[in-house]
């Protein structure tokens, strides 16, 4: 039995299709949105609408930019443009940026090599990375792809391509997180931490 009007039901179903949100949660959110004042509702609708029209991928690094401009990071002249950090997803860029430890530029791949899902080098943002490195005399590329074997394969693939061009590549360190208790670390992380230990 349908309790809500069709339009509202559709809104619930659309919200439920978002990651991490179930049917009950979607219903709650839809009811909350419905209770907003008209001005807030209109503003929200215009924001969603503008995602499609005003937001683009930065033509240099693949992160978000408005209109056809470069993103704020690529257009910041104070950043070190000889250093590039490669990440898989848009969401990983702010994570590294918030650490404050990196002052170079970024490159977002929008995926990783996954032969089992039919994703090859031409399906992710690799060609533009190589071209960018050649054009801008990049000195070092830091590969911050995932630590699973597809992330590893993606990093090695890019490293092979760039090393052929004489560009240095490095991989971010892997092991025990800061503040984590050694007692609760899994075997693979400990093995990696031991293998990549450094002298004091």
């Amino acid at each position, binding site marked *: 039995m349908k309790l809500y009007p069709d339009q509202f039901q559709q809104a619930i179903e659309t919200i439920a299709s978002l990651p991490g949100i179930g049917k009950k949660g979607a219903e709650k959110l839809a009811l909350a949105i419905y209770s907003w004042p008209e001005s807030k509702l209109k503003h929200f609708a215009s924001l969603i609408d503008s995602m499609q029209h005003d937001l683009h991928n930065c033509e240099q690094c693949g992160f978000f930019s408005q209109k056809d401009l470069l993103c704020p990071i690529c257009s910041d002249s104070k950043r070190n443009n000889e250093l590039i950090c490669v990440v898989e997803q848009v969401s990983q860029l702010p994570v590294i940026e918030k650490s404050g430890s990196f002052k170079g530029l970024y490159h977002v791949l929008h995926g990783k090599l996954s032969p089992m899902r039919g994703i090859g080098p031409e399906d992710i943002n690799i060609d533009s990375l190589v071209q960018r490195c050649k054009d801008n005399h990049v000195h070092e590329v830091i590969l911050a792809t995932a630590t699973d074997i597809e992330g590893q394969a993606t990093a090695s693939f890019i490293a092979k391509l760039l090393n052929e061009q004489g560009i240095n590549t490095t991989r971010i360190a892997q092991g025990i997180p800061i503040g984590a208790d050694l007692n609760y670390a899994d*075997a693979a992380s400990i093995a990696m931490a031991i293998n990549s230990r450094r002298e004091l």
Partner: protein
Amino acid sequence: MGFISRIQLKNFRNYPELELDLEPGISVFRGRNGQGKTAFLEGLGFLSLLRSIRSSHTRHLKNWQSDHFGIRACLDRVTRPELDLNVYYGEKRQLSLDGNRVATTSDFIGVIKSVAFMPEDIEIVKGSASWRRQYLDILLSQLSPGYLQSLKHYQKALKSRNQILKRGVNVDLELDVWDDILIQHGCEVLQARIDLLPRLSQAVSQLVSKMLKEDFVLDLRYNNSVAKNAESLVSSYREKLYENRERDKLYKVTHQGPHRDDLQINLNGRSLSHFGSEGQCRLSSLILKAAAVELLLPVEKPDCLILLIDDVLGELDEFSRRAFLKCVSRGDQVFIACTEIPVGLEAYDYKVYEVDEGRVSTAV
């Protein structure tokens, strides 16, 4: 040192709902055919390995009218607090230890170690090489921490490489990358299997001398498709992959690696599967499984080693049966499924349960 003190099955095979208290030592499950004896052992085996001991697909383990199954058990660890194990297979899989979610199967497998003796074990001797690899893999997953993880990584890398071979054009650089990953995890798998062989051979020959009177020399050899000796594993592996790359591209499949290796079993110098009698093959497969028990017993701090014995005792003569029972009676908990109490068991303390149409009761 530990034992399963309580088990609950829900919608598992022909058990809609079962709760049963268990005891350490030997338990015999007696009943007519088709009452659920093997299914009960399968439930215990699933708790240990998260796979069917009868090599059925996991989706076939649930009661056919149900959309999920669950197994819950309490592990009495004697000197340490009890551990609650919970397995749920519905739309999604959920594993937990003491109520804490366990994300990966490799962290759950091995909490309870097990060896299953099943009628289909004869395939280890007579069947295809995959049976023998599976035998080694199940033993090593329980014996060496990290083995299962290496094997899973290897299998994923292998599937990825084969997918690239299927795509076919302009793939050399990608193959280079996946070859590196394949070699890394392939060598971990190979090294573990090669290291196991001398220990396994020793356990087998000790068992043969205990269980058989006649001349019976079982010889095990690991047929390695990438390297002749273990010293140059990485470099030989790399050379082999490079040598065969054009052939691999042509047939669109990876021709060498641990997934193509075999465990060669010879009896008195001749291939057992080709020249052995039915009886010799059965006996040898039983000895191989008993050797797994010997290797799993001395593992440090064993949480619990359970042995699941389904209808294999009838094939042994009295002398071999007594020797076999002596070997398996050392498990923390031994579950025997049978239609009649096996001869030779009277020398041990055991408890009898009657199995009837998916219900289990203590025999009086």
